[in-house]
């Protein structure tokens, strides 16, 4: 019961704020709703008993990446963008994509019912991927990807610094 309340609450919150992210004119408001959407997703992670991912989501996504976004938005003068047309005429393309994706998923669920029990409820405590378990898997089986990811971050960092410098 509680589980469901939590899930549907956060799911609704996530979808509504996601819609607002895309539709708001003001970039700062978009950013705020994106933060809400990300925190709602974090709530869904919590409902899925993925506590570590929950906190990673909060710290990294909401606390780190979004601070970066808000920071940049504030650095860039906002008055310019408020008086411009914010949407272009490709809504039909968006709608088309949405329809295609929706159809795909429906078909996938309908067909895949035999392969994967997608319609079934997710098991409650088949496995509690706690912090320790995630850590163990991350640092043993996925050691190489982990290192590659760290190099990716390093490259991104250097790239960002170089790009944001005044005189290249």
């Amino acid at each position, binding site marked *: 019961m509680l589980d469901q309340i939590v899930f549907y609450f956060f799911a609704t919150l996530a979808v509504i704020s996601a819609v607002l992210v895309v539709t708001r004119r003001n970039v700062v408001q978009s950013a705020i709703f994106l933060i809400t959407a990300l925190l709602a997703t974090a709530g869904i992670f919590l409902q899925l008993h993925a506590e570590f991912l929950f906190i990673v989501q909060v710290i990294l996504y909401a606390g780190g990446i979004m601070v970066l976004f808000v920071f940049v938005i504030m*650095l860039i*003068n906002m*008055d*310019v963008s408020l008086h411009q047309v914010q949407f272009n005429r490709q809504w039909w393309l968006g709608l088309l994509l949405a329809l295609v994706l929706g159809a795909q998923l429906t078909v996938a669920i309908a067909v895949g019912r035999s392969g994967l029990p997608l319609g079934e409820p997710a098991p409650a405590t088949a496995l509690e991927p706690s912090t320790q378990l995630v850590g163990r898997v991350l640092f043993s089986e996925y050691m190489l990807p982990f290192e590659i990811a760290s190099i990716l971050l390093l490259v991104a960092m250097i790239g960002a610094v170089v790009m944001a410098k005044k005189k290249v």
Partner: protein
Amino acid sequence: MAEQRIPFATHAETTVLGADEIVLNMGPQHPSTHGVLRVKLRLDGEKVIGSECVIGYLHRGVEKIAEHRTYTQFAPYVDRMDYVAAVSNGLGYCEAVEKLLGAEAPLRARVIRTILTELQRIASHLFWLGTHALDIGALTPLFYCLREREEILKIFEKYCGARLTTHAFRIGGLQYEAYDEFEKDVERFCKPFDTRVNEYESLLTSNRIWVGRTKGIGILTAKEAIDYAASGPVIRASGVKWDIRKAMPYAAYDLYKFEIPTGKNGDTYDRYIVRMEEMRQSRLICLQAIENIPTGPIMGKVGKVLKPPPGEVYHAIEAPKGELGYYIVSDGTTQPYRVRIRPPSLINLEAFDKMIRGHLVADVVAIIGTLDIVLGEVDR
């Protein structure tokens, strides 16, 4: 966006704001502009690339008032210029008029003037230290400084009944005889005062943050300081040994031994060190002076109605903030024809733009503080 044009007297070549330039208006209502100074800063991020000081918010037309007052009536007005060093202002004016009259105050009056002026210098520097430290973020020295300053103000109050705008001196000498405990009070203040100065220095001088905030900030080389006609601790910190007390002795300064502290780099830190050392020297002067205050009259022969002969005079003294000059033109009547005052704060403030370029916003307050301006004097 429409291109925003901001007139910059000091920076006329580029008036169009770039993508990452903003104009920050500091003051006239701002906690650390020491009154009603208004500074327009052009910032690139936090770096200052241009500035303009807007003054005049405290203009009261002191010089004009002088033309409608007699010489005696005008004397209290000068107290309201540099209101944290009223005694020094009064000394400069009284001596200038005496020079115009060709009279001189008796020795006893001059010695007492010297003592009070030096106490005032200490008080002014204490007030500067407290507020300067507060600007840089050290909250506590202010209260210690005010504690000591209070002692000096008490001496003033006992002497002439006023604490701030004292009007302590009269043209030709003094109105009040020193009260009975005067020497004792001064001694009681001066004796332990050097340990107090050491105490402040122990809070700040070798503090890493303080050194980081003041060393290399607002550098004024000796040549620049002379070119800007800076005076007082500002020019001395740049390494120029210029002190009117030594160069053109007035009052009773030729009787006493004291040093002129100078700095080397002309940065904020050096100005801080110079002022600290000046407090110690002022203390020494006071101690020397109270040892032997000559007896005699305290009022020279100047007559009841002051009517200086036609002519003009310039007289400068070393006020706590620098050279305080009075240029008085007399047309032979009881009222001055023209009084022009050279306020040290105003002249020192002219170096502000030079000192601030290339530094950060945080340094602006440090440099305003280190110039030791009093807006009452700048605007007059």
